[in-house]
């Protein structure tokens, strides 16, 4: 029981984090099945924007809609169901230490499991479920690690586990926050390629924040440039001009230290 591809829409959304305005009146439409990269300097609001999309950050002003429905209108169980349909690959991965790979991957589907079945999944998962986890781990390239404790994996392998967890969730959209910030360039390219391929295969909406402009241009048909919480440009990749990028990264002197 998968999810239909998810669409997102932001209508003049702002987010205040403490006294700073992290997102400033952003309006954005992302269609079901689309692939969008968010680019921009550190602190531009890319992570906050992704947090809005999976309802882990609350909009201070404006409305975020998931599949056309404003998040504040969702009941508790509807919100839970909506979140279960959005896979998120965190910058810090946030795997659960002390659990094995198979348990971490199964935890991705908690949103659709009762407490009893999640308890069973952690302690004594059914054969079919383990087989399903194994198939996904094969897809991301680390099937032999299925019963390893996650602490024993390398950085790249942990990232594969995080991707597998999001896939096991069987989502309608994948969100990834700087998935390549902690791996070497060759692996970075592989990871972005893999996420793009997987989402195309399953018809998932894919939103990814990226520092690396070359990767963003190579793999995404649409780029959204963010600067200081505002949208600097939102354009098909073919139509991008060098000036657009310059506007994003040319720093005023007082910004140099913060970047």
């Amino acid at each position, binding site marked *: 029981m998968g999810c239909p591809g998810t669409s997102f829409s932001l209508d003049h959304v702002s987010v205040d984090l403490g006294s700073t305005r992290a997102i400033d009146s952003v309006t954005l439409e992302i269609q079901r099945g689309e692939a969008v990269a968010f680019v921009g300097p550190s602190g531009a609001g890319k992570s906050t924007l992704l*947090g809005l999309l*999976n*309802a*882990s*950050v*609350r909009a201070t002003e404006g409305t975020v809609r998931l599949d056309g429905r404003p*998040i*504040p209108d*969702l009941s*508790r169980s509807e*919100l*839970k*169901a*909506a*979140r*279960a*349909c*959005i*896979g*998120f690959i*965190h910058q*810090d991965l*946030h*795997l*659960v*230490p*002390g*659990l094995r790979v198979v*348990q971490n991957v199964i*935890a*991705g589907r*908690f*949103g*659709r*499991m009762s*407490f009893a079945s*999640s*308890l069973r999944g*952690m302690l004594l998962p059914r054969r079919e479920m383990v087989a399903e986890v194994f198939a996904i781990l094969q897809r991301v390239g680390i099937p032999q690690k299925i019963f390893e404790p996650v602490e024993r994996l390398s950085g790249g392998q942990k990232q594969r586990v995080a991707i597998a967890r*999001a896939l096991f*969730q069987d989502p309608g959209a994948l969100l990834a926050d700087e998935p390549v910030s902690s791996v070497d360039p060759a692996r970075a390219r592989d990871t972005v390629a893999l996420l793009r391929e997987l989402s195309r295969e399953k018809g998932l909406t894919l939103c990814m924040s990226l520092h690396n402009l070359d990767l963003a241009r190579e793999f995404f048909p649409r780029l959204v440039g963010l600067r200081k919480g505002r949208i600097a440009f939102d354009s098909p990749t073919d139509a991008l001009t060098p000036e657009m990028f310059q506007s994003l990264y040319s720093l005023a002197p007082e910004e140099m230290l913060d970047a």
Partner: protein
Amino acid sequence: MRDLPPRPLLGKRTAVLVAIAVAALLAAWFLGLFESGTLPGSGGLSVAANFFSRALTPALTYETAPPPGTRPLLLKALIAAVDTAVFAASAMSIAIPAGLLLGILASSVWWVPDPGGHASPLARLLARSLFPFLWSTTRLFIGFVRSIHELLWAVLFLAAFGLGSFAAVLAIAIPYSGILAKVFSEMIDEAPRGPGRALQASGAGTAQAFLFGYLPRALPDMSAYAFYRFECALRSSAILGFFGFPTLGYFIAASFENLHYGEVWTYLYTLFLLIAAADWWSGALRRDFAA
């Protein structure tokens, strides 16, 4: 050089350390620890000499003939050690579940509302008023049971229940529940929040996120600490013998009163072996868990 910001003379930490050292000196002076009166008199010295001279020659049989039918000394010490362990284990079998439950309720993570959730007004009201109340009530309760030592609880329960085993077990279990709860709650709160939040962000409920997001990280530390408290419970259980419970303390006190110092050392070494065995056992289990 003119731009160099002024360097604080005494950092806050240094100041606290200096204050503690001064307080220690004042306390020693107040208690008269610098005066010659703290040295034992000649009578006390000879008792001490007699006592410590038996350290290397603990008794293997009774120092004066016991009434007929008395168990041999070493068997008696062994039975006392087993009884000591039984009291400690019964107390821990109450203290660990109680400490776990109270520890979870006393952790801040348990009560943290979902950051992105759009809770109903009623839920928000509960989160603002009832949750902090329950949290601080739990912490107050834990602080209370913990601040009363097991010996004091024993005095209370002896008065209430008499010299039954239940009094000794409860006397240990109550303060230990409080201590375990406090340390468990801190261990739970120290676990990184990211994994639990990530599970909630993908639709997991509070209980699922708590049990499988925070607890797995805290569990090894919590079980190691529970084992350490079991060792403490062995000592407490031995000491409760002074009140007449059949643990090692009872026999230590009896032999001491009869000036049978060799027997005292026999019981002391038995206690030492008991605690060493518990330590070895917990070490072996921890190695198994880690592997």
